[in-house]
């Protein structure tokens, strides 16, 4: 019974992490209908920034996290303004080719600058080890991830549903032409959203170095996971990808624990079954574009 709870706990932490990593993609891919396979590259950028700051410059871990967010967002907004925005109206094939190209470039560039081996971030002592909670081993680091990601999720949901910016974004997504007719600066809203999503990915990358492992091939290795979150979760709200992330995280951890030999097999099978059952995702809109 206690192992079950440990798996559940680890799975939730893993899923929360995936959600923070992928929710930017849920917006660009699900809402703006732009296939951005380079999303993992932003996460990797955040992870490496954090690693360099903590390991080489001696910054405290918690000070480096916001900077990982800011840097990844800055890179995101730069690329969005210079490159991505020309591609919103192009075919999906063009978008796929372009973002695969970007991913390859980022992989080779990071390999060149930082070396190809896995990078570890030195954690503060307070985050290491685990404690017992009614017999269930709770990892401190994972608990912190659940707290941070949980707060972020609530904040995101509130921003989307309660603030003026949230309603602008939803309007711009539902019908860009009418929204701009109402005086909403649609490209600006998209650019800001894109940057925010990249920033979240960067933060997720920094947090995930300990759990998922950070090396130059990160964007390629986890591309499929991000896509699963978005397609299985659907794009109508932020709740869909969130639940999909939790499902994916718990499924992956449980699969690796109970049938370790099957490796990632469990996840892919779950994904394919779900997509046969509901092609537009578990919580998707009936008519996806």
């Amino acid at each position, binding site marked *: 019974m206690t192992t079950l709870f440990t798996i559940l706990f680890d799975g939730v932490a893993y899923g929360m992490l995936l959600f923070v990593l992928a929710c930017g993609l849920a917006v660009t891919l699900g809402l703006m209908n732009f296939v951005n396979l380079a999303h993992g590259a932003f996460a990797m950028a955040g992870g490496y920034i954090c690693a360099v700051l903590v390991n080489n410059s001696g910054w405290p871990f918690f000070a480096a996290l916001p900077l990982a967010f800011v840097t990844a967002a800055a890179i995101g907004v730069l690329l969005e303004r210079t490159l991505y925005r020309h591609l919103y109206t192009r075919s999906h094939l063009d978008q796929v080719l372009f973002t695969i*190209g970007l991913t390859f470039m980022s992989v080779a560039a990071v390999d060149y600058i930082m070396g190809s081996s896995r990078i570890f971030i030195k954690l503060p002592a307070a985050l290491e080890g685990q404690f017992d909670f009614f017999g269930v081993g709770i990892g401190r680091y994972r608990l912190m991830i659940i707290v941070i990601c949980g707060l972020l999720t609530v904040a995101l949901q509130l921003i989307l549903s309660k603030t003026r910016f949230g309603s602008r974004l939803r309007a711009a997504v539902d019908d860009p032409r009418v929204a701009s007719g109402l005086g909403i600066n649609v490209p600006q809203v998209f650019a800001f959203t894109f940057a925010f999503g990249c920033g979240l990915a960067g933060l997720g990358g920094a947090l995930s170095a300990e759990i998922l492992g950070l090396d130059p091939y990160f964007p390629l290795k986890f591309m499929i996971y991000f896509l699963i979150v978005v397609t299985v979760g659907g794009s109508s709200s932020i709740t869909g990808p969130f639940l999909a992330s939790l499902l994916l995280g718990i499924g992956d951890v449980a699969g690796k624990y109970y049938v370790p030999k099957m490796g990632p*097999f469990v996840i892919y099978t779950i994904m394919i079954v779900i997509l046969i059952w509901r092609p537009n995702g578990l919580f998707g809109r009936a008519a996806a574009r």
Partner: protein
Amino acid sequence: MNAVSDVSSHAIARARWRPAEIAFWMLALSCAFLFPSRYLIMTDILRLALFTLSLDLILGYAGIVSLGHAAFFGVGAYSAGLMALHGIINEPVIALVVAGLIAMVLGFLTSFLVIRGVDLTRLMVTLGIALLLEALAERFSNITGGTDGLQGIEMQPILGMFAFDMFGKTGFFYSLIVLFLLFLLARRIVNSPFGLSLRAIKNNPLRASAIGVPVNRRLIAIYTVAAFYAGIAGALFTQTTALASLDVFAFERSADLMLVLVIGGTGYLYGGLIGAVVFKMLQELFQTITPQYWLFWIGLVLVVIVLVGRDRMHRWALWLPNLIIRQIAGRKAVVAVPESDAP
């Protein structure tokens, strides 16, 4: 009635062999005698060309964007390797066809997943299937040899007469013949009414179904055929290199494949063949500059191609040949700009 005869005469005119096409194949054959020391790299190009032809069938003609076409390549490669290794089917030509058929069955089964949903779901399902197979091959490493790959494949002579030699001469002619035969088949397919209906589906699936084209059945059919082609390409890979390892399923292989097709241009069959030649030359060039980081340059080429625009790039590439044709023959360009696939 008139419209029907228009369509059919147009289709027949398209299907006619043009002098440029005959010249292309003569050139391909003459390469065998021009560069007798380069058989291995030329065989490599032919294999890649066949594999790209397979992607062109589904991407260029039916508009299915696939990120996991390596799945069928890998299945073909492992089937051919295992058959040769355990002596199930010793004759390479039969083994080649059987490997293609195995990939074809897989293609048929997975096509039901692929035709569901929109582009995004397709991307993910195709990618997922390739990753799934890679995980399977890794899991059953007692059969597939794991990361070391299949070791000690001994190929028997083709048709019992032509043994594979170490310079790759037999392999080259074998690959060229297979490529040419399958190209003829593909040419027949895309110029048939079936091929026309695929183009209709690609341009607008809703309209195609409104005029009575069974969209899903056509997509399943072409996806299955493309899987057969990819399986043959994979089997050729194993037979000519006596090698099959986990990287036949790798994502990079599928991504490279898209680059090859995009360089050559989609939707006119020769794109894959021309793209394969250009891609291999680029690869050689980049590997001499930076052996370790050529992934970066491949990525840069992709980004630049998309930013310049595929149509514009092909217009530039065709500018010189068109100019020459116009000067000499005094007529409008015969080399058509490949169809764009704007949404």
